[in-house]
């Protein structure tokens, strides 16, 4: 087998910077960012109004800002869990097929670069753009929290908020990879967008119902087995993984993410906070699942792209 010569990463920085610039100035990105800021701002304001009366009573006041909502406005976490996948999909659904449609692929790949670089550069560009966007949002929330509540956040709260940021970034990256893989599979960007959105809706709305039905069917009438199966099957959905991870981080009193037996609660001080490290251990499998899925999706995209014909 022939071995290629030269670095596979030649030109990566050029593609990365160009893609990041494109994503940052992308009208889709700007619209979604405005939507997130507006909706998140509303839920933050409502949460802050609710929490003001409890200042000093809760040592994790800042984290509550992310999870508390007030009818009819859902919590910040609910908004984010809904809008972040959309952002990922919006950036990824035409990552590659737009190059075909614009007839730029042949021209770019005839430059002294390997085709790997285009895929890596696009992925890095998207990660960077989403990381900057989420970091800006994160800083906005922390700033608003201090402004509204008048209490500086503790080190642990900052660490937990940072962990929430990382999980949210992974969640958005996962949906970006879904969009990117779809953009390689289909030449028409409308088809790739539809596929990615269909997958997102499936895992967010339909999979929990299917998981419940499957658990009943496979549980054999045993309620414990059924409940366990429902949890396991439910975790196939990235949405559930994200919500569970976010709750474990933002609500330090969360002691388990699965079914808890009475025997397991022996000696536990109910309502007490878990240390940050313990909360991270709780979501470690979730983080692993996120990373594994992202790598799997990227590998799929990579293989598909390498096998793709360059010609239009």
């Amino acid at each position, binding site marked *: 087998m*022939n*071995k*290629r*010569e*030269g670095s596979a990463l*030649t*030109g990566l920085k*050029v593609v990365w910077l*160009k893609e990041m610039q494109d994503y940052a100035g992308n009208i889709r990105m700007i619209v979604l960012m405005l939507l997130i800021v507006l909706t998140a701002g509303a839920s933050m304001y409502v949460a802050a109004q609710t929490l003001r009366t409890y200042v000093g009573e809760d040592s994790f006041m800042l984290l509550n800002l992310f999870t508390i909502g007030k009818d009819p406005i859902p919590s910040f976490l609910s908004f984010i869990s809904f809008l972040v996948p959309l952002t990922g999909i919006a950036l990824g659904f035409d990552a590659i097929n737009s190059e075909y449609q*614009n*007839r*730029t692929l*042949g*021209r*770019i*790949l*005839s*430059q*002294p*670069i*390997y085709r790997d670089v285009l895929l890596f550069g696009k992925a890095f560009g998207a990660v960077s753009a989403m990381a900057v966007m989420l970091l800006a949002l994160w800083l906005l929330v922390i700033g608003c929290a201090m402004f509204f509540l008048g209490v500086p956040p503790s080190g642990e709260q900052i660490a937990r908020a940072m962990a929430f940021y990382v999980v949210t970034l992974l969640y958005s990256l996962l949906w970006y990879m879904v969009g990117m893989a779809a953009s390689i599979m289909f030449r028409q960007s409308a088809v790739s967008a539809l596929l990615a959105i269909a997958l997102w809706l499936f895992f967010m709305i339909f999979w929990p119902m299917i998981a419940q039905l499957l658990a009943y069917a496979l549980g054999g009438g045993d309620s414990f087995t059924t409940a366990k199966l429902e949890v396991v099957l439910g975790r196939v959905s990235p949405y559930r993984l994200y919500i569970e991870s976010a709750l474990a981080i933002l609500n330090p009193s969360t002691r388990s993410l699965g079914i808890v037996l009475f025997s397991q609660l022996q000696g536990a001080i109910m309502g007490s906070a878990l240390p940050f490290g313990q909360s991270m251990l709780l979501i470690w499998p979730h983080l692993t699942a996120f990373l594994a899925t992202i790598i799997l999706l990227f590998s799929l995209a990579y293989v598909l792209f390498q096998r793709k*014909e*360059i*010609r*239009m």
Partner: protein
Amino acid sequence: MGNETVVSVSHLTKQYRKGVRAVDDISFSLREGEIFGLLGPNGSGKTTTILMLLGLLESTQGSVSILGNDPFRTPLAVKQQVGYMPDTIGFYEYMTAYENLDYTARFLGLDAEQRRQRITASLTKMRLSSRMNDKVRTFSHGMKRRLGLAELLVKQPKIAILDEPTQGLDPQSIVEFLSLIASLRESEGMTFLLSSHQLDEIQSVCDRVGLFSRGKLISFGTVAELGKLHFGSDVLINLQAEGPTDLLPLLKTQQGVLSVEREEEHTYLIKAEKDIRSSLAQAVIGSGCNLSSLELKQHSLNDIYQLAFKEASNEQT
């Protein structure tokens, strides 16, 4: 045109999984500073060959050498020295002409000043300097083609591969485009490989041509060589004469004449074994006719193309 071989293709084959041979055992070479035309109908294997030359498609069999490099083993070295303009060239429409060229120039490892100089110079040469800060979406098709050539100039390649370069251009733009290519060969010493099915334009600018049919290179050489190969004679004489007698029987009986066709009332096309213009002139004047024109005519590439494909399809059936 130099003598150094810059492109060498030997028994190149591309077979797809379903058994379709897009390119079937082709061999040819290009000399430095040459303009070479790849001709053939759509789907005959021209673009597949070009993609293999660039290392963008792996061959099933055979070898390619571009300036001593294997495009599949050392694609970066090949791409550094070869410029490519695809048949359907596209630019990032939301970027300006300058930004588009700057993006691809960055891959060449040039510093900012070198890029600025090369881009400005090439846009000026392509008469696009006044539009360098305009978005490409405002450009016409012809301007985008010129921008494509400007990109080649920024790269300063030793070999330029242009796939259907005149596709979609109006006749005036085609003339301008071809003269640009000819002037680039003169000024930069670039070797060109043009793929096209526009025969007239290829004949006007190419030194040699290769005819493709169903993945095979059925003919290869100068237009005169191909004429000789397919028509069995390299001499066509166009004669114009008026007189009291019909010249057709007289011309047919002249020594060395293979056939005579009356093209118009007083115009004859004579196919001959060799250049017999002097004996023809004597015969025509001797018969009492007024000879107004007697010129040697080359077989048109169109005639060669039609005949070559007819022969190729006869062989295949």
